[in-house]
Every structure is written in C-alpha cells, then in structure tokens.
C-alpha cells in the first residue's frame, strides 16, 4: 500500500527484524530457563504442564511468521493483509502465549535484583490489588482494547506504516496486551478467572473489537489517507471482526462447557414414580371425555 515507506529504509526494517529475533530469543530463553527451574524443583510437568510449554513455543513462532515472509508481503500490499498480520498477533499468538502461563517462569528467570523488586511490588497493597484475577483481567482487557483502538486511528496507523520502528512497537503492544489478557483467561489456575467470569470477560472484550471492525466495515470513505480501496477496507474490517468473534465465542463456550459439564447435573438416581411432595389428588376434577 505504501510504496514510499518501505522502499526507503530497508535498513531500519532489517534492524527491526533483528530486534524481533533477539526479543523472541530472549523470551524463549527466559521462559525455558524458568520452566527448567520449576521442573527441576517440583518435578517435570507439575507446575507448568508440557502442553503449556508447547503453546508458548508456538506462540513465539507466530510473530516470526507474521512479520516476515509471505504474510509480510501481504501486509505491505493491502489493508487486508495488514489486518491479517494484526489478527495473527492478537488472536493466535495472544492466546497461545497466554496459555503458556508465562508469569511465573519469566519471573523466575529474571535477574535477582529484578526479582526482588518484583517480589516487593507483589506484596504491596497495589500489587495485591492488581494480582486479583478479576482486577488483572479487567486491566488487561482494557489495555488490549485501548491499544487496538489507538493503533488503528489514522495518525498512529500511518506513522507505523512509515516507520518500521513504530511499526514494531505497535506489534509489540498487540502481542503484550493480548498475551496478558489471555493469560488471565487461560493461564495458570491461580491467576485465572473462574470460568463464568471468564466468559463474561471474553464477551466484554469482544465488544470494542467488534466495534472497531464495524467502523472499518461500514465506513463509506477510506479511513486512512493513503488507502483508497473501499472493498479492501471492508475486508480488513471483517477480518478484524469475524476471527476475533469466532475465537471468543469458541473459547467462551469451551471454557463454559469444560467447567460446567463434568460436574454434570446430578439427576436423581430414579425419577420418582410419584413425588413425595405430590398433592393427594393430581387428577383435575373435570376431564373432558377421552382427553386422556
């Protein structure tokens, strides 16, 4: 879409790619170290089960796919491509990273000084408030909504288009807020919302995202100055709208069912032939002939 920007500084671009690689590498290393530490102390797969590790690993791969290769090309070419990039980060990488329950391992891997700070912050009054699953989830949800809206306003969006560094910050924002939000939904049991609340939270977080999608899809003019293709914009809007909704609906229902079904309805062993509390004369006084 913007030929101008990306032709100009391929250098900046390769630098951001390197930054990304370094970031992903650092995260992977830290997470791995934390998990290793945990498994060593508490037994493999105990605190952080294997599937969470896998999820986190996959989650780290996604941004690599999203900002390089064909997806990148697509993103350069059209708004739709660009939105698919965002969606990869928000609805694929986010839940995967969140499911990795990265809080504990990353904290463990941090340098001692940082860890001390962290521990102090955790027990302080604000820390305790923020650590409540509900508060945490609301904050992360808000942060995700705000970053979603902020980066899609014409100003920040075009600036990100022009400057690879800003673009990188944008992506980092999406990734971080989405991961944090999903960690509150799918993360470790201690920091996770109870399922019914998670369903509500998911629903509430769906609204601003859908609204943004709606604005894109329904706008009669191009929203960004240098994009002119209306159909492209509509497709982009729908891309923002549909996958998010579908993912959230699926996640909400799955969470709910998982929470609800196993404990199951405890039906009485025998549906009683007559109920003990039944009145003496269940037959109505008058019954039409042959009504039975």
């Amino acid at each position, binding site marked *: 879409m913007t030929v101008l920007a990306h032709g100009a500084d391929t250098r900046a671009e390769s630098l951001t790619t390197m930054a990304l690689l370094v970031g992903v590498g650092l995260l992977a290393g830290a997470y791995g170290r934390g998990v290793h530490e945990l498994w060593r102390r508490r037994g493999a797969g105990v605190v952080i089960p294997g599937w969470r590790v896998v999820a986190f690993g996959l989650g780290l791969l996604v941004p690599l796919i999203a900002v390089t290769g064909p997806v990148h090309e697509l993103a350069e070419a059209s708004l739709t491509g660009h939105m698919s990039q965002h969606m990869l980060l928000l609805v694929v990488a986010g839940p995967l990273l969140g499911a990795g329950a990265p809080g504990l391992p990353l904290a463990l891997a941090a340098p001692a000084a940082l860890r001390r700070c962290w521990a102090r912050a955790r027990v302080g009054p604000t820390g305790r408030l923020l650590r409540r699953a509900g508060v945490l989830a609301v904050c992360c949800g808000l942060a995700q909504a705000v970053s979603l809206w902020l980066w899609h*306003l014409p100003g920040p969006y075009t600036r990100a288009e022009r400057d690879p560094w800003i673009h990188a910050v944008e992506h980092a924002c999406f990734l971080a807020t989405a991961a944090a939000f999903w960690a509150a939904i799918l993360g470790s049991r201690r920091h996770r919302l109870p399922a019914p609340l998670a369903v509500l939270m998911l629903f509430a977080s769906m609204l601003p995202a859908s609204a943004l999608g709606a*604005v894109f899809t*329904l706008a*009669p*003019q191009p929203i960004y100055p240098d994009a002119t293709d209306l159909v492209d914009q509509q497709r982009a809007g729908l891309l923002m709208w549909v996958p998010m909704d579908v993912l959230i609906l699926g996640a909400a229902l799955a969470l709910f069912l998982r929470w609800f079904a196993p404990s199951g309805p405890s039906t009485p062993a025998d549906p009683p032939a007559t109920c003990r509390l039944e009145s003496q004369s269940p037959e109505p006084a008058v019954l039409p002939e042959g009504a039975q």
Partner: protein
Amino acid sequence: MTERIAALTAPDALAAEQPAGRSTGWWGMVMLITTEATFFAALLGSYFYLRFQHGGDWPPGGIEAPKLVKPLIMTAVLVPSSVPLLWAERGIRKGRRWRLRVGLVATLLMGLTFLILQGTEYDEKLHHFTFTTNVYGSLFYFITGFHGFHVLVGMLMTSWLLAASAQGSFGSRHHEQVSVAALYWHFVDIVWVAILFTIYLSPRL
C-alpha cells in the same frame, strides 16, 4: 435412618463469624457499573462511528481540534482523586474514621475542582461552537456533559458518605457502603480517561 436425617438437617454454618464473600451491594454496584460502562462504550462508539461516517476533516465545520492543556490538568485532578478514596477506604477497614473523613473531603474537593475546570472549559468553547453547531458540537457537549453529570452523582455519593460518617455509621465492621460508593467513583475516573482519549486525543491522531 435417623442418622441420615440428622446429617441432612445438620447446621451448615460452621462458626462462620466473619462475613465471607462478596456482598449483594458490591455485586449490585458492579452490575450498575457494567451497564453504565456499556452506555459510555456505546456513546464513544457512536462518536467514532459518526467521525468515520463523516469522513474528511474532523472536527468538521472549521472547529479546531481541542486544546490539550486544560483537559490534561483536569485529568491530573480527577484521576488521582481515587487515591485519597482508596486511602480512606483502607483506613475505615481498620476502623480509622478520621482517615475516612479526610479522604472523602479530599476526593470531594478534587471532584469539585474538576467540575469547575470543566465549567471554564465550556465557557471558552461556547464562544466557538455550541451543541447545535453541528454533530461534533452535539457529541462534544453530550459526552463531556454526561460525564460531568456522573462526576456530580459521584460527588453526591461521596457527600452522602461524609454525612453518614459524621453520624458515625462506619467502622471496621461496617464499611460496605464506603467500598461500594468508592467503586462508582473509580469508575467515573476511568471513564474520564476514555473520554480524554476519545474527545481530546483522538482528533489529533
């Protein structure tokens, strides 16, 4: 059989002296806030909808984008006003009534300052455009005015707490109404941030 009956009719409350769990008041307020938040979300959503449906210059009709200094000052007044309230609430949990009163007064004063600043802001703006000028004017005054009304309601609640605390109703055992009213105030604060973003920052973005 008698054993079974005894088991089924036995007490449930096992010396649960301390009130456990959330109160109905808390849940009621959370639900009220949820629905109000949805209202604001719909309102701000309508703002963006109208903006992008309108296309072209925004704000339209030669109205200049709002200046930032005053709203930032207002933010600096309103958002921190939650802090004395938190402090007051924490105080009354420990039974410190003076902290409650001082905190409430501080919050009230900050809220009042906010409203006064908003008044002066209107005073300036009304020279340039009113709510009948065009849709931007309508949106601007409706959104900020509606929020201002919420601040007013929040202040009424705070004054109510203050009055009730003067009568001596609150202490470490009875402070539910304080926490519930405080929730509302925090909500009004957070909404302001969203409005700041929408009305004041987004036209520049």
